[in-house]
């Protein structure tokens, strides 16, 4: 069952186009990873889906469906009824994602009282249940604590528990482990994976870490300058990266044993350009080794295989020649 379907999503902030016509679908029980450099439009895509764009952000899409219902046309009240209920989101910074003025318990209970009209006692019971579910020992104690009394890993677990309070269908996780250290990161990812399997969540995972993608994703979409430049099943994309940008990203990962000490690490020269209205052609052409003058004209969407698409003029065979 398709939980989220986005076609041709555009987001603009004044002159700047942050997202340029991306399309993606997420099925129930599936993890879809959105990967790319900072500033490529990953987070904006997530916020646009939730209807939480910052001031001045304008969203247009030919289709924005959640569980088969159009959410593009919903007003703020109807959207806020969905948010935190059927679609939930986790943010990057567990340190600042909880309100320092309230205890964990009252913040969690608040969500349930809003969406489920539970009594305070019942809400706290359900909150404790979920804290236990995300692996927090002594949930009763944690409910009475303030965020500053918890470690980063604990706070992120609280955030996850909070997102799951109302049994969401879709969970959007915006770099949920970036701010955590590696061991905690692994625990949180394992937790997300377990929860997804058990609850049949559709998970939209935003990250810049290809290691996380390899480990978590069923499908991956590589974003660059507001566009999805390559998208497909994760094994396919990683084994046969067809877009020059995806190849570049994968080449940037240092592999112990393969990278000689002292040799420079891989990098893609340049930075993500800001795309203004009226921009034409491939957004990556200034940084691309394969760029030709035609790249300024436009880029075709091609199929590397039945389920694996990429946005480039190069034929799908080129990648094997280089590799």
């Amino acid at each position: 069952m398709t939980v989220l379907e986005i076609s041709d999503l555009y987001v603009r902030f004044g002159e700047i186009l942050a997202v340029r016509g991306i399309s993606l679908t997420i099925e129930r029980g599936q993890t879809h990873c959105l990967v790319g450099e900072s500033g490529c439009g990953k987070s904006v895509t997530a916020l646009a889906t939730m209807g939480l764009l910052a001031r001045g952000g304008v969203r247009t899409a030919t289709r924005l469906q959640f569980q088969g219902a159009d959410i593009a046309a919903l007003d703020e009240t109807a959207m806020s009824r969905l948010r935190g209920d059927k679609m939930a989101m986790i943010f990057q910074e567990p340190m600042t994602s909880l309100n320092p003025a309230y205890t964990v318990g009252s913040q969690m209970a608040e969500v349930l009282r809003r969406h489920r009209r539970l009594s305070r006692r019942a809400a706290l019971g359900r909150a404790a249940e979920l804290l236990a579910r995300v692996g927090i020992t002594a949930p009763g104690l944690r409910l009475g604590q303030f965020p500053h009394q918890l470690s980063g890993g604990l706070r992120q677990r609280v955030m996850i528990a909070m997102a799951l309070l109302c049994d969401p269908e879709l969970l959007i996780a915006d770099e949920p482990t970036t701010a955590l250290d590696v061991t905690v990161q692994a625990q949180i990812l394992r937790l997300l994976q377990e929860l997804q399997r058990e609850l049949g969540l559709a998970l939209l995972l935003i990250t810049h870490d290809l290691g996380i993608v390899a480990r978590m994703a069923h499908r991956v979409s590589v974003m660059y300058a507001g566009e999805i430049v390559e998208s497909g099943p994760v094994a396919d994309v990683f084994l046969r990266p067809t877009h020059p940008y995806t190849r570049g990203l994968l080449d940037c990962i240092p592999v112990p044993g393969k990278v000689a000490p002292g040799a420079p690490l891989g990098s893609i020269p340049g930075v993500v350009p800001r795309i203004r209205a009226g921009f034409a052609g491939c957004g990556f052409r200034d940084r691309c080794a394969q760029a030709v003058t035609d790249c300024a004209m436009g880029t075709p969407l091609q199929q590397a295989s039945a389920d694996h698409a990429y946005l480039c003029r190069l034929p799908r065979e080129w990648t094997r020649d280089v590799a």
Partner: protein
Amino acid sequence: MKARRLVTWLGAAIVGGIALIAIFAPLLAPHDPFAQNLNARTVVPYWMDGGTTDHLFGTDQLGRDYLSRLIFGARISMLIGIMTVLTSGLIGITLGVLGGFFGGWVDDAVMFAITCRLAIPLILVALTVVALVGSSFTVVIFTLGLLLWERFAVVARTTTMQVRTLDYIAAAQAAGASRWHVLWREVLPNILTPLIVVATLEMALAILLEAALSFLGLGVPPPFPSWGLMIAEGKDYMFFSPWVIMVPGIALFILVLGINLFGDGLRDMLGVARAQ
């Protein structure tokens, strides 16, 4: 550090003590503050030659017991201070939070209002209003309340701007919180500490302004024992009976000093707590 803490507590003790005096004024005052006794005009206070324990601080030019008037005057000062801060805080914080949170034209409007307010000469407007409407306790409170909100607005606006970009605001919205809920429950509690400090400073300012207005004859009307009014009424006698302006003057000085010490100490304490 320790000395600073001591000074803060001293400030708190002064404010608390004067508040208690104000609350229990009828029990504490030895005489009726309004009762005149023309046979006992400008009786010298206890510590001067010829002073009696009956009138510890002497009497004024109409023979009213000065200590009793001072005690009842504390009520007026505290009440003016608190009510003004409540009124101006309500206006200033509302405007500041709205401007800081919504930005855009709302913020422009709030900034314009703040600029306009800053362009208004305080005393002059207060004088005009009181002269037009007549002086009464309520008029003074509302005039000061409507004039002293700009610092609340400025502080509320900037702190709201800082808070609104934090993730927990977005997280609350992502959890389905309404705009009202976000403003009331997420933003407000987190900007409250600097606002409390502003409130103490504004309170001191309001008390001084009330004294100034009363001194000019446009504040609390006689025969109410406002400290500013006591100084005004006593100024003709200051050469022969200097205590009639010294006593309320020192009382005013101590109260304002206490509030400021407390406010400064509060700011340092909360600032330190935040840095940790």
